[in-house]
């Protein structure tokens, strides 16, 4: 990958965010904040037949958090929830790789534009930024009733997945 964390893909998504805006028709809404830098995002999802049929978001913050949320939206809309969760997991692994990710080609294909965030994983303080929208999406899906026990509730990111290191 090229030297800059700010690949053109990221800047493009930041300047022209996709699926930004909060749809009227939704099953769940969550609001996540990264308390260390004030980045925030609101995500609404609609599920049907085991798939994410719609997702929209609004947010404020650095280009990484906003672009990542934009990329995430494009990737998960229309996907079966299970696939979206698997993708979220792959992205999480990528972010926790400290710059040493060993992605399979299949994973790379799945992640698509999201691969551009690989450079972020070297910067512990930025990982939460890249994860913000993805974690919100996951919470929203759970909030919408997906999965058995999963009822995380809206609110701040309470797990440590995005902690440095």
């Amino acid at each position, binding site marked *: 990958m090229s030297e800059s964390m700010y690949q053109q893909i990221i800047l493009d998504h930041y300047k022209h965010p996709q699926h930004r805006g909060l749809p009227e028709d939704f099953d769940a809404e969550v609001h996540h904040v990264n308390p260390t*830098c*004030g*980045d925030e995002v609101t995500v609404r999802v609609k599920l049907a037949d085991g798939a994410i049929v719609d997702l929209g978001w609004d947010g404020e*913050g*650095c280009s*990484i958090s906003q672009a990542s949320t934009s990329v995430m939206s494009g990737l998960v809309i229309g996907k079966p929830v299970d696939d979206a969760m698997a993708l979220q997991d792959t992205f999480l692994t990528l972010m926790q790789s400290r710059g040493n990710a060993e992605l399979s080609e299949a994973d790379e294909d799945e992640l698509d534009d999201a691969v551009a965030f690989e450079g972020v994983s070297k910067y512990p303080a*930025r990982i939460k930024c890249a994860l913000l929208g993805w974690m919100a999406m996951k919470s929203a899906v759970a909030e919408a009733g997906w999965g058995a026990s999963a009822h995380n509730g809206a609110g701040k990111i309470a797990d440590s997945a995005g902690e440095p290191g």
Partner: protein
Amino acid sequence: MAFDVETVRKDFPILSREVHGVPLVYLDSANSAQKPQVVIDAEADLYANHYANVARAVHTLGSEVTNAYEGARDKVAAFLNAPSRDEIIFTRNITEALNLLAYSLSNATTFPGAERFRLVPGDEIVVTEMEHHSNIVPWQLLAQRTGATLRFIPIDASGPNSGRLVESAIDDVINERTKVVSFVYQSNALGTINPVKRIAARAKAVGAISIVDAAQAAPHLPLDVQDLGADFVAFTGHKLYGPTGVGVLWGRYELLAQLPPFLGGGEMIETVDVGGSTFAVPPHRFEAGTPMIAQAVALGTAVDYVTAIGMPEIRQHERSLTAYALDGLLTIDGLRIIGPATAIDRGATISFTLPGIHPHDVAQLLDEQGIAVRAGHHCARPVCVRYGIPATTRASFGVYTTTDEIDALVRGVDTVREIFT
């Protein structure tokens, strides 16, 4: 010795590093300062030649290391112009120093003989709105434990007084209900230098204990605890070109001698019995367990290092850097200084925002040009709340900072603006 920044830079091995293929421009000293080789060597030499545990041992190595450790206490006492070496307590960092006081005060609730330090509902603890979290949270927790109320001296967020305490509020917030006043000497988020003597005098007038957070003052200004008039002054070693893992709490002896202990363990006791214990006199009462021996010794070396350069010389060097940097940054379109906009009563730490560009992106893109600055709320979130912003970008200078580096910063910020427009 005339101050020469190029000579100084040679003392810091990391300054010859490259980052992203360009020479490092380290403008994050307020976060943590780099270390001169003598400080690095001080720790290494102790371990390689004179190491054992302190205080407890009767053998030669034990005596050498104890003399080195206690010698560092002498150096710090001289650095602060403390009346007595027994007033110097080594802590892990300033965060621990402030918590030590907050816990010692709440221990007074159940500690026989410490009645005068007890806090009860109705009592007030005062901090300012520009405190570092390390000088807010311990007092919030103390208030929670005792039922006392925590109050904040507000700051102005605009106008000529931007980034300064609201002067008229000082005498109001500090009043006869106040039992503790803990405030920052130089703000890490704004660069503001506060009127320490004025606030300490007001605290004294109402009979409150006064505590000065000198984390950002110790590396930049001559400190004289007798002149300041406060009861406690604390700083942290890693910002004073010293190692991580060591900080200092200075306190008036008569207060230290009466305060209940904080951590219990080896070295802080007089005698331990299954039925109860009695405690050593200060400073050992407050130094439980094996101390950060090598780090305290190396902090002594760091104190020697800055003293040899001269704190007034360092202050003068950084003052001109600050004026130079403010001038340079203010040429950038839309850039807003968060804090005092002139070099008067402020230190070498400059926070700013750029319209439409998040501080994280500014800092990250500066890093890609080799320039290390910090972005965030700088552990002083109430400042950001007051200014209505999520975060700032902050450049901070030290004894090794040059005007060339500040030029690089100004150019770098311009480049960031281009990328985002």
